[in-house]
């Protein structure tokens, strides 16, 4: 169970506004990436985001490019989970593969506002907001295993019988 403060965005938040293309082919550290997170959508985000915050958005979050930094920059910024009505598929995979929980929630999103607090019960698939409970479908076991191992690379290392990280 986690509890986090909400950053609220609308539909079709694309990868260019999450992580601008001009930085994608530069080798940046996680910290540098975090500084550019959501730069072209909400310049306040990178300045004010705190460890454990949650992003809540509308439909098609992460549409656009396949750039994985769109997921890693949010993770590096301390975002604990992204809740959206739906996700673009490559972003969804990238998030899981980097150990960033993504929750597809069909109901309740419209009532959540910036600065609200939400609780997420991953085990039972429930988002709690102002006392209301909203259910989300569990991830397929193959996918959940990746998230639980902290991302695709640690997961694959584990499967190959190596220690978690070099």
């Amino acid at each position, binding site marked *: 169970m986690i509890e986090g403060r909400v950053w609220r965005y609308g*539909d079709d938040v694309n990868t260019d506004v999450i992580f601008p293309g001009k930085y994608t082919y530069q080798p940046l550290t996680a910290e540098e990436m975090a500084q550019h997170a959501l730069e072209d959508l909400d310049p306040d985000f990178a300045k004010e985001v705190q460890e454990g915050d949650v992003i809540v958005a509308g439909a098609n979050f992460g549409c656009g490019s396949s750039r994985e930094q769109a997921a890693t920059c949010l993770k590096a910024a301390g975002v604990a989970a992204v809740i959206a009505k739906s996700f673009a598929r490559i972003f969804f995979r990238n998030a899981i593969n980097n150990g960033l929980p993504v929750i597809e929630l069909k109901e309740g999103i419209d009532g959540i506002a910036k600065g609200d607090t939400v609780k997420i019960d991953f085990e039972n698939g429930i988002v709690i907001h102002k006392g209301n409970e909203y259910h989300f479908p569990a991830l397929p076991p193959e996918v959940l295993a990746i998230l639980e191992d902290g991302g695709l690379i640690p997961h694959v290392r584990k499967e190959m019988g190596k220690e978690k990280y070099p």
Partner: protein
Amino acid sequence: MTFAEKILAQKAGLDHVEPGQIVTVTPDFCMSHDNTAAISKIFGKIGVERVKDPERFVIVLDHTVPPSTEKYALGHKEIRQFVAQQGIVHFYDGGVGICHQVLPEKGFALPGTLILGSDSHTTTYGAFGAFSAGIGRSEMAVLYATSKIWLKVPSTFKIVVHGRLRAPLTSKDLILKIIGDIGADGALYRSVEFTGAAITEMSQAARMVLSNMAIEMGAKNGYIAPDDKTFRFLEGRAVRKYYPVYPDSDASYEKVLEFDASDLIPQVAKPHTVDNVAPVEEVAGTKIDQVLLGTCTNGRLEDLRLAARIIAGKKIATGVRMLVLPASREVLLDALSEGLIDTFVRAGAMVLNPGCGPCLGVHEGVLAPGEVCLSTANRNFKGRMGSRDAEIYLASPATVAASALTGVITDPRDVFEGGAE
């Protein structure tokens, strides 16, 4: 079964699959570009020495060629070292072209193959009857190590396009119309099959525009049944024998959407989303600072021909920068021998090296705050081509060429000579 179900079943070694099912597959080919530098570093973290099947991987340098900064140059250098170390033979250095044009030209985009690429527009090869989709960098690194990946079997939308496109209308107008109608998430997670008289009639290059932009409506892949046009294109190019896969006639579709190409009018996507589409009349007269003709969407020979036909003997409007970006060296050479490049340069355009150029806003023509660009590319997101305070409109090569002459967004039917074909 639909195309997606059939090919994913085949690649997973199963008789039958259902939408929603997760399958483990080995792609026939995997594509990466300048992001190979980052991928090779993630590969290093897996702790495996050698790429498992080097012949499966195709690497094309295209995003920042030639490199505009020392950092990009270093990235390219690291990629060349990685390629040499790992014995990756299918390597195309800067100047050969944009990955999504190079893979078809070099014979990798084959019917009945599964191709994954660490680039969202990998969907382009669907126009050849391949199942092709974008993946992330970590996934590509894992493919280096294991050649295996999980995919979810998508459900399928069939998009039937009746009628016939009449010049100067192109498949770009059609796909903008489709995306405008169904929205940027209209086909989210879905496999899309494009079919109907208008698609059969289309050239192979025109079909590639549809598959290229399938991702802009959220689709996982965009399939077009390969036919004689496809087979002819691949003659002398295909790197190996191929076996086309077609959907069953009794396949079950989640949705069937119908469009008519005959009464289509030119379409423009307004800032800052691809589904913000309007008929050209609505935006005609909008002042522009830059036009971009090219990219992996509309940088092929027939696109340059159409634009050159409109521009021939005329001058680009004062105050407008026209950038011409052929999709590949092959396209550039053909355009040179047909005199198209001569036409563009005489009209006052700047011709860029085949590659991605300004499409992703890192070099060769980025936009200043307040500037407006009309582009044949596939994306108009805020900040994509430079300043976040710039505006990008998307349109067909004909609309872009017509507008370059006037300095404002212009209906190409007003200037197109030769009338309806």
